[in-house]
């Protein structure tokens, strides 16, 4: 029998705290770097929480699950791994306090008849359900109703233009947590420059960000051995290959993409070529040669000057390409080919060449095409006329060692992920799905009947009626037409481009309003959960303000709270900005993760790998 271990909340708290301890040193603008060594002996510098956590290679399955949740969150938002773990650890600690409390706990119900362990499990399960409900119902409501009026927008006017200095402070705040102190400013300026160079118009911004995110590996080049300050942005694309044949050309130059060998072969798969006589064989070989020559001539006549191929071409092709003045680049990756196709809007040509007299349509015009010497490597530097939203640019990232360039590349990539999130609208439709509603309907019903009146707070007077109904799902739930309400909703929780100044502003605001909510909420369980979450949120600014010079957090907190009370602007001494939608998603993911952890009651060790569900075909057995 395999060993089974019951999962205890105390152990979860310990694990989360150990993880938080590991990354605490690199949190915040003053945080240090972490030097990782890989099993291959490579070294890597990082401040990226996700990388760090994954590098720890922990054994406990629950800790691994926490890290998996972090990775999942980071792959979407590109940020927030460190905050995630710190929030999770203090949230679990807070929950443990409620569970352990015997008297007066809202979760301590009259179930003495059950045995103790089951009782505990039941309580955890209950908390988990409340967490899920809180995340699905109440968080949105608080975001939409209270926090919204504090949010700033990155757009300088209604036309959705972004000023450069706003962008810079946004990116600088991002890089502050990601890379070494020496290069934060430089890299944030570089990424800002990249953004403005790559974007063609404000309408196509999202498309551009998606493309950069998807093809970042093809859009950056790393060079070691040079100082970081040699990094720069180049117009056009850098293909990470050298020319096989390079013929400089002028005038009307076109590019053609192929994904198959141009040179004909004796027989293709499934067919056989029968050699009857030696002369026949010789004739066929001559025909192949002539054919290749003719195809290359045909390309030359169509002004094709650059041939981009995803496969290796026969030497004969290169020979005739050189004679026809066509440059050849081969062995391009499928990603490179698809990026090229997306940018130019052309598709690869299948070299059947049945008709080699008609005009080739699938070509794009080349602005320039040259060899680029980066470090000691030779790459192809090509600029094509674009037809998509992305003005192709390549960023060259230099650094003394590979570990640094890799860190910068991943931070650069993350910055564009963060921007992608920033311009997304978080709206109610996407958040509350039907299943969520049904799951928590029982609890919600209770909550709704008890606390309808209590949820009405005087602050809501200035918000529109629509928002009132929409933003407070607990109220709307009672009415029969909530379904229509949700569907016709045009009201967003967070508008695109919402930001807040850095330095724990988001956390303090959310803390304040959660406490506020908890006071008014009649349902004790919800009130308790809100208070725990509110307190957990404070752990982040608390850590941020704890420096070697002393802890300035109480002062900052006091100032901020009194500012909220008197309805003033939050005091801030830093000019950095951070995306609210990333922060919002972070809180939501942490709640989900915690809820998920609490529902597990046992870990079972098994001796063989788990079969993957998708590979389980009955035929295989």
């Amino acid at each position: 029998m395999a060993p089974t271990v019951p999962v205890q909340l105390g152990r979860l708290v310990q694990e989360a705290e150990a993880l938080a301890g590991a990354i605490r040193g690199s949190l915040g603008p003053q945080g240090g770097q972490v030097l990782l060594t890989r099993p291959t002996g490579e070294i890597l510098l990082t401040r990226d929480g996700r990388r760090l956590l994954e590098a720890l290679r922990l054994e406990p399955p629950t800790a691994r699950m926490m890290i998996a949740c972090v990775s999942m969150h980071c792959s979407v938002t590109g940020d927030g791994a460190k905050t995630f773990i710190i929030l999770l650890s203090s949230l679990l600690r807070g929950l443990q306090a409620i569970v352990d409390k015997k008297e007066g706990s809202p979760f301590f119900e009259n179930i003495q008849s059950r045995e103790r362990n089951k009782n505990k499990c039941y309580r955890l399960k209950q908390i988990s359900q409340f967490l899920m409900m809180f995340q699905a119902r109440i968080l949105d409501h608080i975001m939409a109703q209270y926090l919204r009026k504090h949010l700033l927008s990155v757009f300088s006017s209604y036309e959705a233009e972004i000023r450069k200095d706003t962008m810079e402070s946004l990116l600088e705040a991002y890089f502050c947590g990601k890379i070494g102190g020496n290069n934060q400013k430089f890299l944030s300026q570089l990424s800002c420059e990249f953004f403005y160079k790559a974007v063609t118009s404000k309408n196509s911004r999202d498309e551009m960000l998606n493309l950069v995110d998807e093809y970042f590996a093809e859009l950056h080049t790393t060079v070691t051995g040079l100082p970081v300050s040699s990094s720069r942005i180049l117009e056009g694309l850098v293909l990470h290959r050298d020319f096989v044949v390079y013929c400089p050309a002028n005038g009307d130059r076109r590019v053609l993409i192929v994904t198959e060998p141009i040179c004909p072969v004796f027989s293709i798969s499934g067919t056989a070529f029968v050699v009857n006589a030696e002369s026949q064989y010789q004739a066929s070989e001559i025909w192949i040669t002539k054919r290749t020559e003719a195809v290359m001539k045909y390309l030359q006549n169509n002004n094709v000057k650059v041939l981009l191929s995803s496969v290796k071409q026969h030497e004969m092709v290169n020979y005739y390409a050189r004679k026809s003045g066509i440059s050849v680049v081969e062995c391009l990756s499928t990603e490179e080919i698809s990026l090229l196709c997306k940018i130019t809007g052309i598709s690869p040509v299948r070299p059947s060449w049945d008709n080699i007299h008609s005009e080739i349509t699938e070509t794009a015009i080349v602005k320039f095409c040259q060899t680029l010497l980066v470090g000691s490597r030779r790459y192809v530097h090509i600029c094509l006329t674009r037809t998509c939203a992305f003005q192709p640019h390549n960023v060259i990232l230099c650094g003394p060692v590979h570990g640094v360039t890799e860190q910068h590349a991943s931070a650069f990539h993350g910055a564009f992920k963060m921007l992608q999130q920033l311009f997304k609208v978080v709206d109610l439709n996407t958040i509350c799905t039907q299943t969520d509603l049904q799951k928590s309907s029982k609890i919600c019903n209770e909550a709704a009947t008890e606390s309808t009146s209590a949820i009405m707070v005087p602050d809501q007077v200035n918000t529109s009626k629509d928002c009132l109904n929409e933003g407070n799902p607990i109220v709307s739930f009672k009415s029969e037409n909530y379904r229509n309400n949700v569907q016709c909703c045009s009201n967003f929780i967070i508008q695109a481009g919402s930001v807040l100044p850095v330095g724990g502003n988001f956390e303090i605001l959310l803390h304040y309003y959660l406490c506020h909510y908890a006071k008014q909420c009649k349902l004790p369980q919800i009130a308790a959960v809100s208070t725990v979450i509110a307190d957990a949120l404070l752990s982040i600014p608390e850590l941020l303000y704890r420096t070697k010079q002393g802890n300035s957090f109480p002062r900052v907190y006091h100032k901020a709270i009194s500012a909220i009370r008197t309805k003033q602007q939050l005091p801030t001494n830093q000019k950095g900005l951070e995306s609210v939608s990333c922060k919002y998603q972070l809180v939501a993911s942490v709640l989900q993760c915690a809820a998920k952890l609490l529902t597990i009651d046992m870990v079972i060790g098994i001796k063989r790998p788990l079969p993957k569900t998708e590979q389980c075909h009955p035929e295989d057995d």
Partner: protein
Amino acid sequence: MSRIEVKKPSLCTNEPFSTESVSRSLSVLSEIVKSCYGRSGRLKQLHNGMGGYVCTTSQSCVLLGGLSVTHPVLKLLTASVQNHKSRFSDCGLFTAILCCSLVENFRRLNLVSCTVIKISKHLLSLCTDYLKSEACGCRISVDFNSTKTLLCLVRSILTSKPACMLNKKEADYISTLILKAFLLTIPHNVETNVALGKCIIVPVKDKRVADSNLFPGLLIEIPEFEFPKFPVKRVSSSTIKMALFCISMSGDFLGAREGTVMVKHGVSLDSAILDQLLNLSKQMVNDGVGLVVCQKVIHPALKQYLKEQRVITVDRVGIAMMEPLSQMTGSQPIASLHSLSSSCYGSLKDLRTETFASKEFLHLIPHDTLVCSLILCNRNETAWGELKLACETAEHVLLLTVKQPLALLGGGCTETHLASYIRHKSFDMCSSTFKDLCCSPAEYQIVSDAFCCSVESVACCLEHDGGEILIDRHYGHFWSVESGFPSDSDWSNLVLKCGCGICNNQQNLNWCVLQRQCGRFAPKSCYNETCVNSKDDLVLDCFTAKYNGLQVAVETANLILEVSCIIEDQN
């Protein structure tokens, strides 16, 4: 059956600099690199203790490549130096020493690391701005009208590698050869796209250094039995037609990609292909080709036929030789066995045979010398390897100098001059700078002192024999004297000339012992055209390489200081 390997958890070390092991291993590495530096540097012998190859060296790339450092911080440092070296070939030890002493000196300061990093970055920008500016007193511009400065540059590189075992005469000779070779690779008619040729080093060991020689064109080593015993066929007295093939001429079958090829009984594909090859050869013979060179293998039957027709064949030259061959002869590598157009042929001026230390070479002499072969000799294997590396470094440095025609004063003078300049400059910083850097003037002063000390300590490493190092308070140059003199003696009787060789003891330069009672002064520039051109034994360093090395060293030191935690994967 799939097996899952259990991964070990990683080892996590917080605050690595509080532990003893880092500083200990750092000081060991620092001692190794420091003792190798300069022309009187000590040699290191690398061997694995198990009967492996023993290598004697003082060059950073061999040394750091051979050492197996285990500590992650040191790995970062050595990787950084090696990457610099692979880009610029020169100033590897300079970078390593500077980086080590920066880390050691900054660690002693007991300041918050982010303050130190900010200030050192600012100091670095002072250095780079100064080196880039016209007013810089430790750089000279290279005059391409005379070979003097270039020769000094090459000679300085060769003499700074003591493991090459060259005496002064040999160093002069090899320097001349390297410079000659470099000049040969520059094309005569300069168009918009300048492509430099190539110098190919041909190894000949167990011969005297003085037997080294330079040949314009290409030397291809061929086995003795293939040595041509007939005069080569010429088109005219000074033209030999040649064909260059980049595909195999051994009669390989072109092949079907995915399908199958069925051959009927009695049909021989081999003979079909051989027939084709013979047809091709016939055409070449008719076209008057005198030399056939193939990257891959030529069929023996074809070789025999061509030999009978008095055509010289050379095969298996390899891909590395293809570019110089086609560049030098103007021939296009042929990749088809069916159609030969006369535009593919290249031409040679002459073809000779040379015998060198029991090796037979075919010497291809082109019309336009873009390619040359340097026969490099040295007494033994390890000294030859060291000399070859030095030659490659020198070649690379010459190329970098052509791109940026500047050179820095060598022999420690640049370091002492730069340190005096930074000392002087950082003394009167305006208060807005401190505000930008978020530091106090006192903090700035402390970091700046540590920075200058580290730069000077690189110069100090040039002295290995216990001598005293002086600096003059006028130009800020480096002077070394033998040990054993009181510090208040009249230094002008003891010094001869400064490290780089520009200044001598004639001028009264107000000497003092380096890093002792020197005070602050603004170093002046001693460089003027006449003074540089009149001297032909200056010690110079490559500007581009040292400039980059300085930046990389400071950046790496900052990276190391910033490390707050180490996670080692133990799988």
